[in-house]
Each structure stands twice: as C-alpha cells, then as structure tokens.
C-alpha cells in the first residue's frame, strides 16, 4: 500500500494504480458522486479499459517527490509503495498548462461538441488567434489514439493505426483486417469517425460491409466479418449453429442464467429508466446486450447485459480470452443510451481516505 497526499487528503492506495485512478477514487469516496471526477481531473485520451497513452496532456497534476515539484500526467503515473508523494490537482500552474493544452486542442478541432464542453468546464472560452486546420476526412480527430488502441486491445484486430509523425500524425484508414464492428465509431470521444447503417449495408472507413439478418426477427444485426471473427475466436468450443446466426435479441438461452463470471467490468441497466429503444443492443460490438422478458413499471421490456455471450458454459470460459469475446468495457452502450439508464463499474484498486 502506498501513502499519498492528494490535495489536503491523506490516502492509502494499492500499488500499481495510476494517479488518475487514485484521485478519482478519493474524490468519489469523499463526495459520493462519481460524476465529479471529470471536473477534478479533465481527460480526453484516457479510457478506463485501455492502456494509458498520455497524449492530450489535460490530466496534468503537480507531483511533489523528493522535494521536487513537477507536472506529471496522472493517467500513466503508476503509484509505487516505496515513495511518498504529494499531489495537487488544482494549482495555478496546473490550471495554466491545462488551459493552454485545451486551447491547442480546440484550435485544431473547433466543431466537436464534446471538446467544447470540456473546454467550457476548464474555462477556455475563445481560441487565441490560431488558424484552424481544415481536415477533409476526420475533421474532429484529435489523434488521441483511443480508437486505434481499442481496435488493438479490445477487438484484437489492429485494423486502424496512427500513422506518420509530428504534425502529420493522423489516423490511417482501416486496412483489410477491419471487420466493421463499429468499435472505433462508438468509442471516439469527439465523434470524428463516421459510420452509416443503411439498406442492410454498413459504411465505415470508406468500406462497405454487408449486414447479416437475423433469421428470426429479420433485423440486420452484425457484419459477416464480425460473425466469422467470432467463430474464429470460439472455434475450440462446441456451440449450436444458431449461436452465430441469431441476433442477441433472439438467441434465447437459459443455460447460463446462473453463470457467474468475474469480469473487470460490470454494466448495470437501471431497469425502471430503460425505455427499450435497443440503441445499446445495436451498439454493443460484442453483442452482449439483449432483451429481457420482464417488464418494468412503465411497461417496457428492459434490456439485459451479460458479461460473456449467452450460451457459453462455465467450462468453456477457461479456454477463452475474455477481453476479446466478453465485455471489454468499451462504454459504447453507456454512451449511446439516451435515457442515461446504463452505468458501468470498473474494478479498480482500493483507496482508503484517512483524513
């Protein structure tokens, strides 16, 4: 356990946590409000389920170590047992650096609503006299690398990547490895990536994918490539053929109702708020959300989340890479829900606030 001082609060945190997680947990414990953490330390390139990248430089905090004070990015600063550090999250120095970096980001991509919102929270009102950069394809892209990391770490395909260097750095169009799962589209914080599902076709990255229709309900639900990738991942396991052909809404399996799986992420659907619009069902790149049979107080059949695809058995799970096949915590459902009925919990290290 590492001893830290965060602003005025003395805390004890587990070794191996990042500073960002420690600060988040501390303020969540203090205020009992999870939504406040983005105000304490703003962030753009960080995503709970991805390896930190530290490109946006907004999560800077002042770290005092061995008598020296330095600005450090909290998202990739790993807490060690042996050292005692003091962290200040809101000093004039921190504020100045964050504001300047936000101004630079906003000058590059001035049209994104999310960026405008973060800038407003930081008190950045108007761009300084910077010229805007007109990008043809990915207008709002800030090269934070969330989509490329997600494609690599959560999907396991690595079809998109950050190419080139310096100011030329950009997200390169998807290669032939792309399966059209839409993970990049859903995870992009600035909505820079465009995807369109129309007439049974999905358009993304200038490619066209054919959407497969569910034999029962006749709704297009996944691309051919997604299904064959799923088959490839599950090739060692005996599964009925309709496991792959039916959509998650229709594939009815009672076999794993009581299957308790410990995953890093837990998605909670607030059943009484859910209005059964099925946007999350369509968004989930892994097909883990389905319709339930119980009606809520308003008369809607609320959705259900399962950590691994339904129909898998307990003995199968040991053979599988759960990150690739089960819930990877991409937050696509959370981001797409119009009713804010979805909450995601990530397992993190423990933080105890002493004072």
């Amino acid at each position, binding site marked *: 356990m590492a001893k830290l001082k965060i602003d005025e609060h003395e805390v004890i945190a587990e070794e191996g946590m990042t500073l960002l997680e420690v600060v988040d947990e501390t303020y969540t414990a203090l205020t009992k409000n999870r939504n406040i953490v983005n105000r304490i330390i703003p962030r753009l390139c960080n995503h709970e389920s991805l390896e930190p990248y530290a490109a946006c430089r907004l999560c800077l905090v002042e770290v005092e170590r061995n008598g020296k004070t330095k600005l450090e990015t909290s998202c990739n600063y790993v807490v060690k047992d042996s050292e005692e550090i003091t962290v200040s999250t809101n000093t004039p*120095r921190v504020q100045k*650096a964050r504001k300047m*970096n936000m101004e*630079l980001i906003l000058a*590059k991509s001035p049209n994104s609503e999310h960026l405008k919102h973060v800038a407003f929270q930081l008190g950045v009102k108007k761009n300084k006299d910077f010229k805007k950069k007109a990008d043809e394809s990915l207008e709002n892209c800030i090269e934070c690398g969330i989509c490329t990391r997600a494609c690599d770490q959560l999907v396991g395909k690595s079809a998109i*990547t950050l190419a080139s*260097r310096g*100011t030329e750095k950009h997200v*390169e169009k998807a290669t032939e490895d792309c399966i059209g799962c839409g993970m990049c589209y859903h995870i992009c914080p600035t909505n820079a990536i465009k995807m369109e599902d129309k007439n049974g076709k999905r358009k993304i990255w200038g490619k066209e994918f054919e959407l497969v229709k569910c034999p029962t309900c006749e709704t297009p639900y996944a691309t051919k490539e997604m299904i064959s990738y799923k088959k490839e991942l599950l090739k060692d396991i005996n599964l009925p053929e309709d496991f792959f052909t039916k959509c998650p809404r229709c594939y009815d399996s009672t076999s794993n109702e009581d299957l308790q799986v410990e995953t890093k992420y837990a998605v909670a659907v607030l059943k009484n708020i859910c209005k059964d619009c099925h946007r999350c069902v369509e968004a989930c790149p892994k097909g883990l959300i389905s319709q339930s049979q119980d009606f809520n107080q308003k008369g809607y059949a609320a959705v259900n989340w399962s950590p691994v695809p339904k129909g898998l058995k307990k003995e199968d799970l040991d053979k599988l890479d759960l990150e690739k096949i089960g819930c990877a915590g991409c937050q696509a459902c959370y981001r797409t829900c119009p009713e804010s009925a979805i909450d995601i919990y990530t397992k993190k290290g423990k933080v105890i606030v002493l004072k």
Partner: protein
Amino acid sequence: MKRDKRFYHENIISTLYDIKSQNYKITEEDIKNVSKQYSLPTAKVKQLATFYEFLEETKPKYEILAKGPLISKKSTTIKSHPYDAFKKSLEQGPEYVLSEVKKSQLRGRGGAGFPAARKWESCKKVQNPEKYLLANGHNGDPGSNSDRYLMANHPHQLIEGMLIAAYAIGANKGIIYAEGEFTDSIKKLEKAIKEAHQEKLLGDNIMGSKFSFDLRIFPAAGVYVCGESTALMRAIEGKVGEPRLKHIHTAEKGLYDKPTALNNVETLINVPHIISIGGDEYAKTGTATSKGTKVFSLIGDVDQEGIIEVPMGTTLEHIVYVHGKRPWHTVKGIQFGGPLGGFLPKELLVGTELCFDALSKHGSMMGDALMVIGPDKPIPETTQYFTKFLEEQSCGKCVSCKEGLRRINELLEDLKTSKGEKSEELTNLILDLAENAKESSLCQLGQSIYNPVSSSIKHFKEEFTKK
C-alpha cells in the same frame, strides 16, 4: 548494403529499411509481405513504415579544424589500437574502472551532462544476468557529423570504451545505435567488430575471464526524437519511437525490460583515454564541473566548417575567432546544441566557457553543433528553421509539443508578414506556447522547445519586433 548477420541487430525496422534502400520506396505489397513475415497486422507495419524516415546514404565530408587527445590518432585497424586500457581494466577489476571514471568526473556528452559513473553505478546495482549497454550514435543535430566522424575513424576506441563500460556494469550485450545513412561509419564499425572477434576481444569469456560481451550494430531509420533514450530503445525493439515516462528508470527496465545503460558515442570514446591516463590526470583539463575535451561540429558563417576538439573551459569567443576565423564585427551570435539548444549573442561569448553549467545558465546547451550566425542572417528565420525541423521530427504524441510547434511556426510566419504590427502580442504568445511545451510535454524534445525559442527572443528581441 549487404550485411554480415552476426554483427547486426536485425528487426522489422531494418527489414523495411532494406526494402526502402533497394527499391527507393515501400509499397503496399511490401507492407503486406513484411506483416506476414513478422505476423503483425498490416496497420502496425504501415505505422512503422510511415513513422520512420529510412534516410538514403549520404557522403560525408570531414574537415578537422582542431585535434585533441581523443581524435589525435585514428583507430580504424586493430594494429593501431592495441586495447591496452581494456586489458588494464580486466586486471584491475570493475571497481577500479568505476572509481577511475568517478575521479575523472566524466559527464555524458549527449546534452544533459549526467555523470557517467553515477549512471553506471545505478545500472550495476540492479541484479540481472542480462544487461544491455547501448551507444547512442544518433547524431541528429542538423549540420553536425562529429559522432559520425568518431564512429568512422575511431571504431576501435568506441568498442574498447564499450567493453570497459560493459565490464564495469556487468552488461553482456551491447548495441551501437548508428543512423543507417552513415554507411561509412557502419562499414568501419563492422570491420572493427570483426577484427575484435578474431582477436577474441568480443564474444564469450574474453581473454580467459568470466566476462562475455556480444556487440552488434543497429542501423537506425532516422527521426530526431529517436535520439531520446526511451524512444531509441523502442526503435531497437522494432516499435514506434515514441518516448515513454521515465518514472521507472531505464537502469532498471530499459531495452526489452532489461537493465540498460545508454551512453553517447563520444562519452564512451573518452573511457579508454581515462583508464590509460588515470582519472585524476583526466580531471586536470576543464572547468570545475566539466572535465576533459569536447568534440563537435563548427558550422554556419565561419571560414571553414568542420569538426573540432577543444578542452572544456575554452571560451566561446576563442572558438569562434580562432577556430572559426571570424572577426568581431562579422558575428552576431551563436547557436549551440542543435534544435534543442539555445542562442547566445556575441556579448555573451566573451568569458563564457565551454561548460555544461555555464551554457545552460544562459539558456543554451552543450551539443554536437555550434552554429555561428553572421550579421546578415535574421534570427527569427533561424529560429523558425529549428522549430520547423522539430515539428517534422517530433513523434507527435503530446498536444503541447505537436500542436504547440504547429502554432509557433504559424505565429513566426505571421510575424514575418505583419511587419512590426502586433509583434509584441505575437512574441508573447510564442513564448507562452514554448513555456507550455516545457511544462506539459513528456520527453526532452518537447520540453526543450523552450530553449531555442526563448533564448532567441530574450537576446534578440529587437529583431522580432522591428518594423
């Protein structure tokens, strides 16, 4: 270039380099083939192919203006360089080497000037049967070719320096990171390594001792940011050369997560000299904090561009007037340390000694290139030359560096066209951006943007604001 595989560190980057130098381009087809060969997704290979420069072979011109103890005698053949200092070290033991280097107060020649002995000690402390010693021959400062010269003409001195350093810290693997465009240096190094192998100075159980050392060359594929230690290690691992947080020291987890010591080529070439004359004797030359001599390129508005070796403590005035042969009225100032160094006006050249601390006090840096600036050269344009270079050669990860440099270059352009209007405002904004890059960026490249920008504005403000 045909390579003897025994002496090279091969990875995906050198494979791509070979393709580029054979066909002058890397096609989509090539990328697919390489991705199959290394079983990597095509996108990742594409990333590497677009990140690195894969520079074409260049022909160097070495002009030696002043010689010192390091470059007085070439060591291109093993006969001219008998490895006496290494044999002496083997007899005396690693502790002796460390204490001599400590006595010599040798500081790293890469720029920051970190004491070499302290670096080695922290790496020696870490227990691991596999340790790396790397020689940084990146030599990326525009106009400079001093490290390249050292590798091409003093390869045995470098190998001996690496042997002694590796023996002191207990490293068993060494890699010389040399730019692939330096074909002359690489060929000479290859020949020297071959000779050393024949004499049993490299390989297993050297000279009957328990010490084994495997030395290889890595022909690097360019990009200025890869001169940074952690980015350099990633390049050797065959990854994209983006620096990482140095929160965990490379002495503990460096190349392939093994303890690693990285030294500049010039630092290592100093080591045999220190061992043969003794640390105390070595420390007699130089200033209170910087000892020995320094080899660098003298470029810009001088009589003759070339490489000089001068003792530490020589005044900059002396270097410009004696070695550069430039009278007082034909010099406006100098720029030392390449894109990450700083400008000094001619008033400061008087009395400022060649010393790590004196230079950094004035906002400049010890580097591989000293550029003399004549009165006709506008300072804002010279600054822009450096910031443009950095914009192109940054890895492009941190917003403060990437976007900051983009805006600094735009503003410098505006300054040129505005003809004095709003110039005060614009220079302040440029300074703000440079300061933010220093505060917020991850690596040395981003943090050092401040040096050229602020020193030029500080010392030559009237040139930025004139109508």
